[in-house]
């Protein structure tokens, strides 16, 4: 599903650029669909570079696919514009990372959990790198704040037999569930947990750093409500840039269609690329990379710019709650775009230790750098 959303957004951006007077060049999109088959990404990119002579590639959703593409863009000195949030610990000169880095997605969510829900958490996720690394970060922060990981349950990718874990959650009644499942596994788990919790008369908060609007529809109206989600983009962001973007999107794809963080981020990738080419006066990779650095773009998700230190983007982290109607209600956002920290080298774990146990203090301190919206 995400691949389709990302392609639609990329093509929308291309059309807008080609029709705009603000750019004195046009983009010719060349599409390839590796279909999620990891080994195909290398072949598809090699083909784009050798046959179509493209200089810039937008795409890749999973880290596994990105790792396939990096050797070839590094060897041939091309740029990959990567839209998806990921687990960090990478920084290639030939990738512009437009999705959120871990300090921009998981860290604010864990901070919120510690301050407002509980320091004891039940983790469930898909058995691959995203969950392993999210769980590691959660564990580090939670244990620094004297909290506990109550459980760490993993499901194979695509697995939808979730009953045993749902039963365990209902039996143990953890104060909060951190969900790093992806795709059908996540939808099945949220539906089953919602049904079981309703039967048991329980309300167990759930956290996610990947849920997006089109997924709420797939999960279903009742089961998708109430998930606290961290993301740099929600369709419900106020502001003229986003309202206009959403209107253009719906005009193109229908009133019933929803935006997603990854779709929006793909749009931002293409726009950042176009603006960098315009600034550089050339599509040559080195010139574009230099021109993209620190060049602010007022995107649908707010101001975005590339940090030349690590080729990741300054983004504004946000937290929201999923609502009836398959939308998110944003209840917190950072005061300003946050510097990307892909290696979490600026994560101060001792600060989490100091936060625990003194609620009044915490509220006072929090107000310095957090702003409540709505």
């Amino acid at each position, binding site marked *: 599903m995400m691949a389709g959303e990302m392609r639609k957004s990329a093509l929308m951006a291309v059309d807008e650029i080609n029709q705009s007077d603000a750019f004195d060049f046009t983009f010719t999109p060349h599409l390839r669909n590796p279909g999620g088959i990891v*080994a195909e990404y*290398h072949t598809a990119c090699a083909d784009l570079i050798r046959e179509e002579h493209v200089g810039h590639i937008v795409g890749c959703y999973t*880290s*596994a696919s990105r*790792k396939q593409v*990096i*050797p070839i863009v*590094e*060897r041939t000195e091309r740029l990959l514009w990567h839209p998806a949030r990921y*687990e*960090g*610990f*990478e920084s290639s000169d030939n990738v512009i990372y437009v999705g959120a880095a871990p300090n921009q997605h998981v860290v604010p969510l864990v901070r919120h959990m510690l301050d407002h829900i509980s320091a004891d958490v039940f983790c469930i996720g898909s*058995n*691959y*790198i995203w969950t*392993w*690394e999210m*769980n*590691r970060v959660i564990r580090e922060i939670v244990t620094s704040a004297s909290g506990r990981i109550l459980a760490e349950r*993993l499901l194979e990718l695509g697995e939808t037999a979730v009953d045993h874990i749902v039963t365990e959650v209902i039996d143990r009644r953890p104060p909060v569930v951190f969900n790093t499942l992806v795709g059908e596994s996540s939808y099945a788990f949220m539906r089953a947990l919602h049904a079981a919790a309703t039967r048991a008369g329980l309300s167990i908060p759930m956290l996610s750093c990947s849920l997006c609007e089109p997924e709420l529809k797939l999960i279903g109206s009742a089961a998708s409500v109430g998930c606290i989600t961290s993301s740099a983009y929600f369709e419900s962001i106020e502001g003229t840039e986003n309202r206009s973007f959403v209107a253009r999107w719906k005009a193109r794809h229908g009133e019933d269609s929803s935006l997603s963080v990854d779709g929006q981020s793909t749009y931002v990738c293409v726009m950042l690329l176009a603006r960098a080419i315009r600034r550089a006066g050339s599509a040559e990779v080195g010139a574009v990379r230099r021109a993209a650095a620190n060049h602010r773009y007022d995107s649908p998700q707010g101001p975005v710019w590339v940090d030349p230190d690590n080729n990741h983007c300054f983004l504004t982290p946000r937290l929201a709650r999923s609502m009836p109607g398959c939308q998110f209600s944003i209840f917190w956002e950072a005061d300003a775009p946050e510097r990307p920290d892909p290696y979490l080298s600026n994560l101060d774990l001792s600060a989490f230790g100091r936060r625990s146990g003194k609620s009044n203090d915490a509220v006072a301190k929090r107000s310095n750098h957090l702003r409540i919206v709505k």
Partner: protein
Amino acid sequence: MTRPSPFSIRGRRALMVMRDEREISIVRRQLGRLGMTISEHDPAEPPPIRPSDVILLDADSIPIKSDHATLWKGSVPIIAVIGTETPSRLKWLLDLRPASFLVKPLRSAGLYTALVIAFDSAQRRVEQAAHIEKLEDRIRSRRVVFAAILQVMRGHDMSETEAFALIRQTAMRHRTTIEVLSAQILAAGGMPNRNTRTA
């Protein structure tokens, strides 16, 4: 025992536990140039029984939380082939105690160095383990040595220094260790017959 040179690669057996065909072909070609015997193994399967001298393990292709992930841990040196540098993945790797590593994307350069370092560190590991075992034996024998010194002190009316000197000299004459002689002293209830050769 002569120490096998880590630089002699020819004839050693390499097991490739990798998935990516491109990477496999790069490694296979280079190992072939070095004269190694090569076999391949599916990362999804538990480790094979057949012996090898070095394992090239693609860290990205084995789930961290899988039943047989830690079965790779053993005496055969592992060269970790690393794509993902997240701490969760590296923690898993550390548990396997890799002897060396390679970073993707692979190329022909670097593999020889990785092999040499792997063979050398595996050899050092074996030597260190033997050395530690010897030291531990000696620590365990301290109680025996101490009891023998006390016995000689009482039996010969000597100071501790004199008793230890006598035991050490006797051990040297008998061409045995202080620990072995001490055990004999305790068993015999006194200094053993000086004319007896132990070795």
